[in-house]
């Protein structure tokens, strides 16, 4: 057996090691921040660490399974009845929607504007793993193999949830609109005013850089404006909750509440906004 302790004088000191890994980390962060340079390395590491994620989901999955198992027959039947009752209503609404869509396309043609076609969508299940504290990200069980691409919009039944920021072969990571690194261009539905909605790391989002003269009120619905091309236009994003006009500040402090049920979903919808562009499998 070799005595490792006697070698310690020959190995680099701790401080040297720290300086080395610090420089390495800074280099990695800079490369990673620039975009997709490290995507390959991250993918490989993600796959290697997938077992951790799989094991971490066990408690929630067991819980959900137990709840499902012990739920009474009656509760389930009630659910079923409710869904059945809702179905005709939704179908009726859809009829109207289809008629409106046709009408819309017709008018747009009259105006010589580009036709907006309905989007392709894919349901993705959440992988129930906890996010880094104070960030808002999700892992979903659809990845590059299913045609998911970087920057793809993610919605739920009510509104925009966020966008894909990391694509691995079988999973991807979604940054929610509430994450501090996220911003989305919006439009006030009532007045048409354009603005940006920023994540804060808490449940609310913030509308920044609007002056006191801006035409925005409490209760206003903010919809995606489609500027920048990342998100399709017209999807609900958030509803203005509180506007604070502090005369000492250059801009209004506006709190808004996301419309999507962030944190309550088991599934999310991935959409391909431009249906002309085929989903790119593996870029």
């Amino acid at each position, binding site marked *: 057996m070799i005595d490792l302790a006697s070698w310690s004088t020959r190995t680099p000191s701790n401080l040297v090691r720290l300086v080395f890994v610090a420089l*390495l980390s800074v280099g990695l962060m800079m490369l990673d921040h620039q975009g997709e340079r490290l995507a390959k390395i991250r993918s490989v590491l993600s796959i290697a660490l997938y077992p951790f994620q799989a094991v971490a989901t066990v408690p929630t999955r067991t819980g959900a399974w137990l709840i499902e198992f012990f739920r009474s027959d009656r509760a389930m039947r009630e659910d079923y009845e409710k869904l059945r009752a809702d179905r005709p209503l939704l179908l009726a609404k859809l009829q109207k929607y289809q008629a409106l869509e046709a009408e819309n396309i017709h008018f747009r043609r009259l105006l010589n504007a580009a036709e907006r076609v309905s989007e392709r969508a894919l349901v993705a299940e959440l992988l129930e793993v906890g996010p880094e504290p104070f960030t808002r990200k999700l892992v979903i069980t659809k990845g590059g193999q299913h045609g998911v691409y970087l920057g793809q919009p993610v919605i739920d039944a009510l509104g925009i949830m966020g966008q894909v920021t990391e694509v691995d072969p079988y999973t991807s990571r979604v940054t929610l609109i509430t994450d501090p690194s996220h911003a989305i261009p919006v439009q006030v539905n009532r007045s048409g005013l354009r603005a940006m909605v920023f994540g804060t790391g808490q449940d609310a989002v913030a509308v920044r850089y609007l002056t006191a003269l801006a035409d925005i009120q409490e209760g206003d619905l903010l919809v995606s404006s489609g500027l920048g091309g990342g998100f399709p236009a017209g999807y609900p994003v958030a509803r203005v909750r509180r506007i604070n006009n502090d005369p000492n500040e250059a801009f209004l402090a506006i709190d808004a509440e996301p419309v999507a049920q962030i944190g309550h979903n088991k599934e999310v919808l991935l959409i391909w906004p431009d249906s002309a562009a085929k989903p790119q499998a593996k870029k």
Partner: protein
Amino acid sequence: MKLSNAARGRLTIVASFAAALLLAIVPGPDWAEPFRPEWVGLVLIYWCMATPQRVGVGVGWSVGLMLDVLYGSLLGQHALAKAAIAYLTVRFHTQLRMFPRWQQAASVLVLVAINHLLVLWAKALASEAPVGWSYWTPSIVSMLVWPWLFVILRDIRRRAKLA
């Protein structure tokens, strides 16, 4: 299966880090999110203090990188922070061992806070820093958890005959 002492020791350390990584990503209710202790940091501090010849800057950096991958944060962000606290703990491990438990916990608070500060700086440079003071609650919760975690890990270490 009969393992040599050295192999058993290594396995114990790896298993404790694996458990810490799991605890870091096990989902919990949203309201509990700010109260999650910095498990990986705590386990790292313990091993750096108890067995500085085995666990140090290199291990800290690698574990931090794994955390970066699991969290989807910028690669190197947690790695740098963990390497730094590993360095500090190894540097002061003799003092830390002599401290009474409460003083040790206070030192752990400082170390974990340094970890969070470095992560916050990295996030701020990439303009994705979270808003609000609740960012610091995990440091305090980590301090409160430390005395118990210390006892548990010490038992594990003794059972594995790790020096």
